[in-house]
C-alpha cells in the first residue's frame, strides 16, 4: 500500500551495546546487547522477555533514544532513535515500572497538564484526552488525588494514562507490572490489551513474569545474554514451552498419590504434594476436579513454571 515503512514499527539490525565498568586495571566489558536483530509490525502486541540482566532494558532504552548503541542499526517508526530522539519521543510512549512520569507531591492532572504542554496538545485536546483515558483506564476518579496518596496499582494506571496522553503509536513498557498484586496485575494486563485493540497502539512489553506474556502478548521474543534465543507466536510458545503447570496441594491428612493421565508427582510428603500437569494431554480444570474429589485437600494452588525453566527448555530444545 504505502510500502514498507508504514507497516513496520520497529526494525533492529545487528544491534550491540557494550558497557565498560570498573576502573583501570579492573576494567570489564559487558556485552549487554549482542548482535540483536528483529522487526515488529504496527499493531502487534509483543512480549520481550528474559531473566534479570538479559539486556531487555538496555535494548528498550536504545530503542527509545535514551542510550546510544555501540554498533548496529535500529529504527522506530522510521526514525533512528539516538539521532532524532526528540522527534521520536513525540510519537512513542514509555513506561518504566520503577520510574515515574508523575510528580509525587502533585495530582496526576497537574502532571498531565505539563506533559500535554510538552507534547504540544492544546487545552481542548488535553481535556478531551484526559477524559477519554480516565474512562478507558477506569481511573478518572484518581486524577485529582495527590500521587503520594495512591496505591501502587492506582498509580500505575495513572502512569499509563500519562504515557498515553499524546496518543503514541508505539508503547514501550519496561516491567510495568513489577510490584503489583495479582488483581492489579490482571487488571493492568487487560487495559494494555484494550489500548491495543481499541486504539491500535503497538505494545512492546518487557517482563520476566510468564503470565504477562500469556495474557497480553500475541508474540513472544525471548532474550538472554543480549541475544534473541526465541521468537514465535504466544500460541505456539504455549504449546511448545508453556505446556506445564505446577500444582501444589496441602493435605489435611496423609493420602496416597493419585494416578492421573498427564500428571507427574514431583514431591510427596504427609502434608504436601507437588504435581506437574501436562496441559497438552489433560486440562488443568479436569485435574483439579479429580484432586478435590479424591484427596483430603486443605489448600491448593496452580502456578506457572518460572521463566528460568522456560528458558532452560528453549536451550534444551535448540540443543536437540
Amino acid at each position, binding site marked *: 500500500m504505502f510500502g514498507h515503512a508504514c507497516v513496520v514499527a520497529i526494525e533492529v539490525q545487528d544491534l550491540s551495546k557494550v558497557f565498560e565498568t570498573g576502573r583501570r586495571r579492573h576494567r570489564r566489558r559487558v556485552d549487554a546487547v549482542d548482535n540483536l536483530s528483529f522487526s515488529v509490525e504496527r499493531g502487534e502486541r509483543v512480549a520481550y522477555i528474559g531473566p534479570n540482566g538479559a539486556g531487555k532494558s538496555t535494548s528498550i532504552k536504545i530503542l527509545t533514544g*535514551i542510550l546510544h548503541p555501540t554498533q548496529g542499526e535500529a529504527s522506530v517508526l522510521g526514525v533512528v532513535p539516538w539521532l532524532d530522539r526528540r522527534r521520536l519521543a513525540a510519537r512513542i510512549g514509555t513506561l518504566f515500572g520503577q520510574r515515574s512520569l508523575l510528580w509525587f507531591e502533585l495530582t496526576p492532572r497537574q502532571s498531565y497538564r505539563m506533559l500535554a504542554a510538552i507534547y504540544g496538545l492544546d487545552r481542548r485536546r488535553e481535556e478531551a484526552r484526559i477524559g477519554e483515558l480516565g474512562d478507558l483506564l477506569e481511573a478518572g476518579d484518581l486524577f485529582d488525588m495527590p500521587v503520594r496518596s495512591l496505591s501502587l496499582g492506582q498509580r500505575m494506571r495513572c502512569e499509563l494514562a500519562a504515557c498515553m496522553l499524546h496518543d503514541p503509536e508505539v508503547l514501550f513498557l519496561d516491567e510495568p507490572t513489577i510490584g503489583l498484586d495479582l488483581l492489579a496485575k490482571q487488571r493492568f494486563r487487560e487495559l494494555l490489551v484494550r489500548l491495543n485493540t481499541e486504539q491500535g497502539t503497538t505494545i512492546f512489553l518487557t517482563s520476566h513474569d510468564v503470565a504477562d506474556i500469556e495474557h497480553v502478548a500475541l508474540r513472544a521474543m525471548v532474550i538472554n545474554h543480549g541475544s534473541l534465543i526465541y521468537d514465535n507466536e504466544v500460541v505456539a510458545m504455549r504449546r511448545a514451552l508453556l505446556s506445564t503447570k505446577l500444582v501444589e496441594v496441602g493435605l489435611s491428612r496423609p493420602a496416597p498419590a493419585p494416578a492421573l493421565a498427564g500428571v507427574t508427582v514431583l514431591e510427596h510428603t504427609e502434608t504436601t504434594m507437588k504435581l506437574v500437569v501436562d496441559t497438552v494431554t489433560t486440562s488443568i480444570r479436569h485435574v483439579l476436579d479429580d484432586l478435590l474429589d479424591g484427596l483430603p485437600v486443605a489448600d491448593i494452588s496452580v502456578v506457572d513454571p518460572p521463566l528460568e525453566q522456560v528458558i532452560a527448555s528453549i536451550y534444551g530444545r535448540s540443543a536437540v
Partner: protein
Amino acid sequence: MRGLAATFRNALAEVRSNRASFVSQISVMVLNDIVWVFFWVLFFRRVGSVRGWDGRNILLLLSVLTAAGGIALGVLANARRIGTMAVDGQLDAVLALPVPPLAHVLLRRVEATNVGDLVFGVVLFLSAGSPTPARAAVFVFAVAAASVLLTAFLVLAGSLAFFAGRNEAGELGFHAMIVLGAYPIDIFAGAAKVLLYTAVPAAFVSSVPARLIEDFDAGSAACLVAVAGVFAFAASASFTLGLRRYTSGSVWTR
C-alpha cells in the same frame, strides 16, 4: 517553550505543596545567611578595611552571591545534581520526553531552602546596598550574569560524571565555588587569583559584580557577560556530549 513553562509551574507547585515547610525552610536559610552578615560586621569592626574591602561592599558581595546562589541552587535546583543524575541513571524520564533535556532538568525542581538565599540576597541589597534605580539595575544585571555563570559551572562540573563515571568532581566544584565566592577576591594573590578568574571563576560570581554595583565600568561588565557566556556554552556542550555516554544505570541492571 510552553512545555518548559508548564514544567517550571509544576516545580513551583510541588515545592509549595507543603506551605508550612516551604515557609520554614526559607526562614531558616535567611537566618543562616544572617549569621554571615553578623560575621562580616564583627570582622570589619575589628580589622578596619582589608585591601579595599570594608563592611559596606562586603555586604554587596554577599547580596549578589546569595541571590545568584539562590537562583542556581534554589530555582534551578537540579543544576548541582547533574552529576548524581548522570551516575545513578536518573535522566531516563527526561530523555523519554520530546524536550531539550538540559533546560527541562534545570526547570524541573525548585528547592525551598535555597530560595531563601534569593530572598535574603534581595532583601540585603535593598536594606544595606544603598539602592538607587541605577544601582538596582546593575544589581539585577550582575545577579543574572552571576547566576548563569554559577549554574553553568555546576552543570559543567556535574557533566564530568558522564565521562568519569563518578561524581566527586561535581561535588568539589560545587563546594569550591560556594566557599571561594564567599570571600573578596583580593585576599588571594598570584596563581590562586588567576585561577579564580579563570578555571574556577568564583571572582565573577561575587567580587566582580559587587565592584560593578559600587563603581560601574563597561569593560568589567562585558568581561562578566563573556565569561558567563563561555561557561554556558561549555556546560551545554559537555552535557550534550555526556548524554552520548549516558549509561542510565544500566551497568547494574542492564
